């Protein structure tokens, strides 16, 4: 597991806990929960840029390259889809939708690490 994974792990867990707490407090999605999901997206974008640089620098992906990029592309779409879905109906349940992003992203990052190394 590399630094990218631990970054996704940390930010993802913080985002998930934040959104769950907000949901339990019966709050609708607000700046805090949406920005926490945006932070997950930001870390994933850093992962993307960093991975492109590593490949250009000559590093080899041990597993299937297209599987790695597939996971990364899907993970990058998760926060966007979740935010879109959550603001269509702004209830506390939408915060639980946002909460799913962080854990899903960290599971996918773990899988991406397995493919890379």
């Amino acid at each position, binding site marked *: 597991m590399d630094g990218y994974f631990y970054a996704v792990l940390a930010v993802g867990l913080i985002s998930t806990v934040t959104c769950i707490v907000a949901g339990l407090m019966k709050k609708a999605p607000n700046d805090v929960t949406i920005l926490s999901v945006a932070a997950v997206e930001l870390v994933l974008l850093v992962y993307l840029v960093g991975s492109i640089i590593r490949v250009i620098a000559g590093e080899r992906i041990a597993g299937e390259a297209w*599987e790695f990029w*597939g996971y990364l592309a*899907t993970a990058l*779409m*998760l926060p966007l*889809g*979740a935010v*879109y*879905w959550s603001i*269509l*109906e702004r*209830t506390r*349940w*939408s915060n*639980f*939708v946002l909460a*799913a992003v962080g854990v*899903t992203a960290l599971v996918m990052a773990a899988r991406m690490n397995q493919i890379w190394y």
Partner: protein
Amino acid sequence: MKEAPKVSTQTKPAKSRDTRNTGPGRLLIAVYAVFAISATARAGYQIATKFAEAPLAHLLSAFAAVVYLVATVSLAKPGRTWFKVSLAAVLVELVGVIVVGAFSLFDPVAFPHDTVWSLFGRGYGFVPLVLPVLGLLWLNKRRPGKADPASANAQ
């Protein structure tokens, strides 16, 4: 993923009762959507790369993917017909995860390749086992024609 279901009920409050796409239902649909994507990707990958190794397991993966796709879309749609489609999809999902889970447990040789439902969805944190139960509870709560104490007073 989540952009697939088009939400048409939002602007029609008159039909708001006959929909599953609200409140906790939206969380359920979101989780189903994630499983529809991951099951589709997994089945596609398996069939594209190693279908000949275990055709049955990989066809099962594809079947599971279709079930999750149908469940996601039908749960997001309003009306009685879509309710029936949802009910069928969730029941098939429940039977599938129990039967495939049991087979993979008692006869691991027949299921050398994992599907979403193998070992009752252990590879996915047992979410595949819990999801259809929550789905049935939600469908029961929002079934068409059921008396709704909240809206009965309002009407």
